[in-house]
């Protein structure tokens, strides 16, 4: 009904552009109040939910934190769905002349030429973790592991490249595509790292009936357009009205 409360969505910060647009679209289409979306790092959100945050829906930037909540029995398992996928790419400043062919055993250190490789924190930030896994798989990790500039977020890593501080960086395709100061030098094959997946689920404590409705809208065609506009790959098939 019209008096229903807003859906509270906890979402990874990197989704803001797409999600804001989708939320507005849903509100208009359904006549419900627009969801309140709290954007922060996935880990922050997960821990808040653990401590009783009033979230109805959680969209994580990686599987780990969704698994963390699942392990604590805080989500409705049947609502969990892998919503989006992303890719990690190697970027360089726009005026860079570096050319790197990403392939097993490629010499990334040479391409860095003494500079740093900007990445999200390789232990904590999802993009960093994926990047590290990919470089390991490709046998390039040992050559560069002492030249990593670990940023606090993938955005900060991108910034380092776009400001020319670092000659190369590993970031999401979604971020790289939107930054005019960087160019994508190459993409990491998807089989070199765990799949980059954005799972979504309704929280166990959620009593808001609209949460499911919004979730299904997220899986719908309008949402797909918005996500794809930001460079995400949408994993779910158009919902059959679950």
């Amino acid at each position, binding site marked *: 009904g019209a008096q229903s409360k807003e859906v509270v969505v906890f979402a990874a*910060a990197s989704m803001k552009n797409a999600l804001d647009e989708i939320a507005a679209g849903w509100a208009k289409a359904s006549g419900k109040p627009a969801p309140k979306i*709290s954007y*922060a790092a996935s880990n*922050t959100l997960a*821990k808040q939910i653990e*401590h009783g945050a*009033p979230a109805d829906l959680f969209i994580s930037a990686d599987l780990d934190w969704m698994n963390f909540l699942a392990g604590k029995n805080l989500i409705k398992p049947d609502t969990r769905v892998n919503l989006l996928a992303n890719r990690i790419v190697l970027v360089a400043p726009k005026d860079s002349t570096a050319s790197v062919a990403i392939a097993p055993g490629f010499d990334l250190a040479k391409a860095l030429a003494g500079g740093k490789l900007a990445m999200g924190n390789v232990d904590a930030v999802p993009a960093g973790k994926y990047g590290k896994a990919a470089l390991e798989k490709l046998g390039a990790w040992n050559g560069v592991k002492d030249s990593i500039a670990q940023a606090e*977020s993938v955005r900060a890593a991108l910034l380092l490249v776009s400001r020319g501080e670092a000659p190369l960086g590993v970031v999401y395709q979604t971020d790289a595509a*939107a930054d005019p100061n960087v160019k994508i030098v190459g993409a990491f094959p998807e089989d070199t790292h765990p799949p980059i997946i954005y799972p979504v689920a309704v929280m166990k404590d959620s009593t808001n009936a609209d949460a499911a409705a919004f979730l299904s809208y997220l899986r719908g065609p309008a949402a797909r357009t918005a996500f794809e506009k930001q460079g995400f790959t949408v994993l779910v098939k158009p919902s059959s009205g679950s």
Partner: protein
Amino acid sequence: MTGWLSPEEWTAVRLSLLVATTAMIASLPFGVLVAWLLARGRFWGKSALDTLVHLPLIMPPVVTGYLLLIGFGRRGPIGAFLAEHFGIVLSFRWTGAALACAVMGFPLLVRAVRLSIEAVDRKLEDAAGALGASPVWVFFVVTLPLCLPGVLAGMILCFAKAMGEFGATITFVSNIPGETQTLPSAIYTFTQIPGGEGGALRLTLVSIAISMAALLASEWMARLIGRKIAV
């Protein structure tokens, strides 16, 4: 300017003002008390209190926020106690944001007040005592008025800190629009998305403008006070 900021951003501005003001005012009495204890008290555990007060400065804000979440969250011991006995819920409310800001600004407030109290001439306090004022009265009619410049400085530091604080806030009460999304949280969100720089800059300027107004007001008041108590 309404066109310049989106309605949600206006909400964030209003919320930030509310949070910063509340944090500043609510922490004031405790800050002055603690400053007085540290400046004039002699008691066991003074060093511990001193360290405790400085903790929010020493610890990364995220840690502070996390500890707040653990302690004052819905399931935390203090949070549960407050909710049960006083009906005060802090978690994921603007009140929680105010608490986070107050905690983060507390060391700054205390230090400024403490410095001022230490600069108050004890001979004047003695004189007031000899004239019949009990220690509590001495504090209120002599010490406090004389350290108003420090109180003011502490308040403005606390306010400015609250306008900029987000690490502890976002960790403790998340970033819920209209409820806990303060200006810095909104700015932070902008920095996390492609093309968000413009928005971040815009909101930062708003934040600076507000703080500057507060700063000017405080300087003006300090001058008034200073003129009055110049010896």
